[in-house]
């Protein structure tokens, strides 16, 4: 039995209804065709299901994987329905291929109806207010949970909370040194580079720093060292800024005075 296109309600073309998933759509198709679930005509429903997906495509809506999966199931079922049904060993006809689908739809409809009753109760019950918790003498903190009600979810949320707070209070030292650069570190690096009286091209060195923060720290370190007369600055004819180490010894208290 082939079904002419356009068997979906005309209004669907104007405004595509939104379903809570493929089963919800199937249920609606059963309703549109005015048949009982148990009497579902797979070929018709299958075609209409695809028609709906095509409409979704036309409207550039994303089709969730679940719909595609269910569509494939329907095609499979439709082909099974066309084949003669095998017989079991006793000579009885084998199970109707639709049986599982019918069962799922009946169960889904039953639960969907129940969800409508819950929705009704919900909308009435949101109007019920209790007293706002207040600090009580000798009572536990208001956010305390009834022990019976504490579940794995709460345990995990609590653990996550601890870890997040811990990380916040103890930022990793590696990140620290990358983000805020210590002038003293740069200062020490600078003096080390100048050991042995090698000429040192300041601009070239600054160009090798990895971030603006590090450049600033390195430059401040140069100014510090110059102030302490540990280095001398020279500008070459080519415009390079060259540093030399002086003979002055670095005093421990001087190093400690440099900003970390």
């Amino acid at each position: 039995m082939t079904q002419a296109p356009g068997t979906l309600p005309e209004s669907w073309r104007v405004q595509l209804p939104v379903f809570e998933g493929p089963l919800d759509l199937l249920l609606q198709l059963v309703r549109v065709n005015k048949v009982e679930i148990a009497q579902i005509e797979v070929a018709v429903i299958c075609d209409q299901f695809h028609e709906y997906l095509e409409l979704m495509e036309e409207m550039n809506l994303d089709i969730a994987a679940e719909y595609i999966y269910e569509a494939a199931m329907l095609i499979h079922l439709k082909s099974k329905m066309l084949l003669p049904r095998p017989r079991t060993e006793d000579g009885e006809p084998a199970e109707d291929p639709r049986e599982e689908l019918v069962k799922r739809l009946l169960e889904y409809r039953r639960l969907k109806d129940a969800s409508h009753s819950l929705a009704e109760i919900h909308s009435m019950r949101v109007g019920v207010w209790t007293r706002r918790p207040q600090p009580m003498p000798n009572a536990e903190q208001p956010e305390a949970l009834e022990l019976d009600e504490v579940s794995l979810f709460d345990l995990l949320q609590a653990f996550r909370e601890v870890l997040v707070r811990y990380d916040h209070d103890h930022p990793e030292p590696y990140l620290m040194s990358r983000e805020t650069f210590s002038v003293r570190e740069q200062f020490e690096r600078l003096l080390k580079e100048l050991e042995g009286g090698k000429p040192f091209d300041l601009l070239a060195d600054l160009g090798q720093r990895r971030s603006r923060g590090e450049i600033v720290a390195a430059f401040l370190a140069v100014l510090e060292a110059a102030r302490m007369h540990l280095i001398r600055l020279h500008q070459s004819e080519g415009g390079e800024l060259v540093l030399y180490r002086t003979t002055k010894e670095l005093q421990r208290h001087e190093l400690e005075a440099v900003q970390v």
Partner: protein
Amino acid sequence: MTERADMEAAFEAVLFVASEPLKREKLIELFDQSEAEEAGAALDAVLERYRAQADRGISAEEVAGGVRIVTRPELHGYLRRFYEITGRSKLSMAALETLAIVAYRQPITGPEIHELRGVQPSGVLKTLLDKRLIKISGRRQVVGKPFVYRTTREFLMHFGLQDLKDLPPLEEFEETFGSEPDRQLSLDTAGS
């Protein structure tokens, strides 16, 4: 020996202050064991008085295995206006369907819910867990060890139920599979 009037006053005060349902036994424990019967009667008298005052702002209800004082639902609008609360917890249809599945088929796992609704339930489950309407109550010892879900005491409180037996009954459909001869079936046999 406690005066009956004092008992009623004590229950009223304790119930008034509480923001969640209190178990009858716990309330009655406030008094000496020898007075338990009298205390029970006093508690009933208080509850009855609250329930009887139909035109008042507050009333008593029995939910989740306990008793509590709550406002009448009709006054929601005033409370919302006064406390400037907009949009109190709306539940999406997806959340309600999933909640119904957990409520009626608990204990149930994520994959089972997926099978029943035809939709991946993780986002909705998270919403329901956050609202404390459902909880994880362990794992099923099958492949993948999925979490097992149940409804909570909060669920009972919110829906005004004493226990799960109070859920509206599921509709039993008369449709049984294959009860009527069916066109398509006969087509198949004709072709064989």
